[in-house]
């Protein structure tokens, strides 16, 4: 019985993230449009796009290989699994122990790996640009992320997200410099990883400025749809990661009553909305930077992460 319930909760979470992801994208677009004094597309526009794409036929370049056709699903799967393992409305989910924070990052890493390969398969110049820049960005973003994990893990004494969340919601945390640094770094990394302004512009198709879009330039139809979903899943994942770690209030504990779950879900949606709004605000506030400014941007994140780890010893010596 308990097993089934757990399974159900786990399943709910997976479905929830899947459903919520495009909504977040739409919501941010909407807010951005509003901030720019435009009406903008409706919030559920992304769903429409995806459904339309799904129904369209795929136009495949002649020299596309079998890899090109399988990769979208692999990307999607990796991102989805990763997203499913991050506590959203409840912690201590059934399979949450099957991968800790490092593993989740690594999963996202494999998703990126696949995407970059997809970019190179057709053998066009844009694909190459996209992949190489993506990997360059990642090569800085990933270590930064790992350093953030170090900070959290050293504070909470665990890399298990549920445990971390537990700890962060407990009173033992107190206010810490390093956590602040970690938060800032995490936000920077999130922005970079999700190809948002100022690192990349999800809206542009101006060839030389795009990174993420350039990789998926050759995709169409259902493949494109799947990739889009994966993209928004990733965004949601980062949001819920920040939420779970830095705003852990309202997370339903293991095996709680359904009402608690509902409350958790509500709280979660609230957090996501806030995050989306802030993101939009940030994106409208600043402009995209040149590609070779990005390393400094991310280097800052890396430094912050490292600093956070080292400052731990200052604030509290183990």
């Amino acid at each position, binding site marked *: 019985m308990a097993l089934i319930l757990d399974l159900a909760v786990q399943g709910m979470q997976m479905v929830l993230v899947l459903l919520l992801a495009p909504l977040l994208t739409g919501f941010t677009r909407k807010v951005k449009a509003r901030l720019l004094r435009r009406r903008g597309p409706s919030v559920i526009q992304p769903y429409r796009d995806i459904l339309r794409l*799904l129904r*369209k*036929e*795929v*136009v*495949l*370049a*002649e*020299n596309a*290989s*079998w*890899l090109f056709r399988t990769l979208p*699903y*692999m990307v*999607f*799967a990796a991102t989805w*699994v990763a997203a*499913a393992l991050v506590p959203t409305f409840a912690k201590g989910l059934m399979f949450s*122990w*099957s*991968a800790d924070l*490092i*593993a989740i990052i*690594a999963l996202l*890493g494999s998703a*990126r*790996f696949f995407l*970059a*390969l997809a970019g*190179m*398969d*057709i*053998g*066009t110049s*844009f694909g*190459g*640009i996209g*992949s*190489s820049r993506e*990997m360059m960005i*990642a*090569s*800085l973003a*990933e*270590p930064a992320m*790992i*350093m953030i994990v*170090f900070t959290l893990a050293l504070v909470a004494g665990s890399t*298990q997200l549920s445990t971390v969340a537990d700890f962060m919601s407990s009173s033992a945390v107190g206010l810490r410099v390093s956590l602040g640094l970690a938060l800032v770094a995490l936000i920077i990394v999130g922005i970079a990883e999700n190809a948002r302004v100022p690192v990349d512009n999800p809206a542009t198709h101006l060839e030389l400025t795009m990174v993420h879009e350039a990789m998926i*330039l050759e995709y169409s*139809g*259902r493949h494109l749809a*799947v990739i889009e979903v994966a993209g928004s899943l990733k965004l949601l994942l980062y949001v819920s990661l920040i939420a779970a770690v830095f705003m852990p209030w309202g997370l339903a504990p293991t095996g709680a009553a359904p009402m608690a779950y509902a409350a958790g879900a509500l709280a979660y949606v609230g957090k996501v909305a806030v995050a989306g709004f802030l993101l939009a605000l940030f994106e409208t506030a600043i402009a995209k930077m040149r590609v*070779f400014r990005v*390393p400094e941007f991310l280097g800052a994140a*890396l430094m912050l*992460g490292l600093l956070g780890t*080292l400052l731990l*010893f200052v604030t509290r010596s*183990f």
Partner: protein
Amino acid sequence: MLWCVAALLATSVAAIALVTVRPAAGPRFVYSACLVSTAVAFAITVARLTDDWGPAPTLHLPLGLPWLGADFRLDALSAFFLIVVNLGAAAASLYGIGYGRHEPASERVLPFFPAFLAGMNLVVLADDAFTFLLSWEFMSLGSWALVMAHHRIEDNRRAGYIYLVMASFGTLSLLLAYGILAGPDGRYGFEAIRATLHESSAVAVILVLTLLGAGSKAGLVPLHVWLPLAHPAAPSHVSALMSGVMTKVAVYGFVRIVFDLLAHPTWWSSMIVLALGGITAVLGVLYALMQHDLKRLLAYHTVENIGIIFIGLGLALAFQANGMVLAAALALTAALFHVFNHSVFKSLLFFGAGAVLTATGERDMEHLGGLIHRMPHTSFTFLVGSMAISALPPLNGFVSEWLIFQAILLSPELPQWGLKIMIPAVGALLALSAALAAACFVKAFGITFLGRPRSEAARNAAEVDRFSLAAMFAFALLCLLAGVLPGYIIDGLAPVTDGLIGAEMPVQASVPWLSIVPIAEARSSYNGLLVFLFLIISASLAAFVIHRFASRALRRGPAWDCGFPDPSTATQYTAGSFSQPIRRVFGTLVFRAREHVEMPPPGNLGPARFSVDLRDLVWDVLYAPVSGTVGFVSERLNRFQFLTIRQYLSLVFLALVLLLLALAIWP
């Protein structure tokens, strides 16, 4: 056990005979013989390691040093490394059965191949200093001969030369280390060495010498220069052995001396190891990113992985020095696990490179591309290898790096501030190298196998023979298994860490769902199997749903490319252009990278030229001066060859007078 080695040596002798009489039948016979004997050895050692561990069997032969004889011992550590060695060797032999047919100079490969294998086995089995060093140098010699197989190419000769000099440098420093360990009256047996207590200064010297010796063979920066030259020069299955296995034998040497013979390291010694490991990891992968020769790229990645392994070993040293045996066991397990993993996927990748080489005759990625269409199986296995070496779940490379991260996260409990501060920094280096590795293999796989063929050879490539494919698929499967079922390997390593550190990680096989729990479940856990299943299920689910309910229509058309598709394959991204952003970021300070662009003036239709020159700082700073000094001194001294008789006489005269003076002023 030794019978297999004997069989190998016999094979090599037979091979010499064979290549002289019937070159035609050579490869098949030799490689099959190697395959059989190494496979048997592999089976034996696996059996030894898995069944309940009795006293280590020893063997004494009246060879080698007369009053000492040659001692061999098969304890847990050597058993594990024997598994690594013979696994790689068996696969390489299998691969060789097919690959050897295309070998132009097989009479220069066949005799030495089995000898090389035998040498590696003997190093791991040796139980006294003399036998150890003898086999060690024998191994180097065998591999040197294999590197020189294609000796008509100038670069190969140079590579072989540098390799051999570095190898003997390493051997001599190990020799000095053993000199201290054995003491003036020459107690060379490992048993006797273990029994003696060494004072701390001696321990420090020994550790440094061992780092020099084992490091120069394993390819620690700055002793790595020979590796990227020598490994690609050899035939591919030999490159696989050298990169995948021989470097591990070097690691064995380090572990054997530092953890086993030299029981009590000091905590600061671990700092040296950690620093070297971190630097090696990052520099190795950066060098690799700059290459466009496929095999050289792989060789540089060996340098990187050696760095990762040494990070693990350094952690183990640090924890052991502070008596945190459990943590030390974790770190050591992680390091050894990575040894195993790297031997598997690096061999796999070199096999792939060899396949590409046979199919196209090209090692330069700038002339490859689009091979995924012509050689699907090879490219699939190569993809698996690339994912594994890039530490992507659910494959094996991730597990060992994950374990190392777990060990790093235990560092705050160390008392020394130096280590507290240093280890997280090393962790950052590790993460950096992992991310860069991913970038590098996107490049390697993408440029070589994806895109459109950049040369005629690549356009007409054909899939390789079934033996090679068998070897590659076996190892690809192994990458997956080790990734999804790491618990069994960790348990298998328990006796090793038990023997060296006196502690072992918690038993993993009993954990539900076959996940691995280094310390406690609340702290961290990882389940490769579930992740793998989730990935497969969700991917296939998505595919199924979409194909079932949405459209499955598909139309082939020209590439979109923002509306300007260009038929010329030259418009693709090249290896050089792929690594350009990263070169901009790191290159300028690490390689003093300079980019020269010559734009023809407007109206001139000549092509624009873009060239990059990279300098190997290590070479410039360390090796060039040394060789320069030797050259200078020999030039100066050379005048003594051309003196007149009278001047020679005056030399004698001076010597005499000096000695007499010495006597005169003698107290």
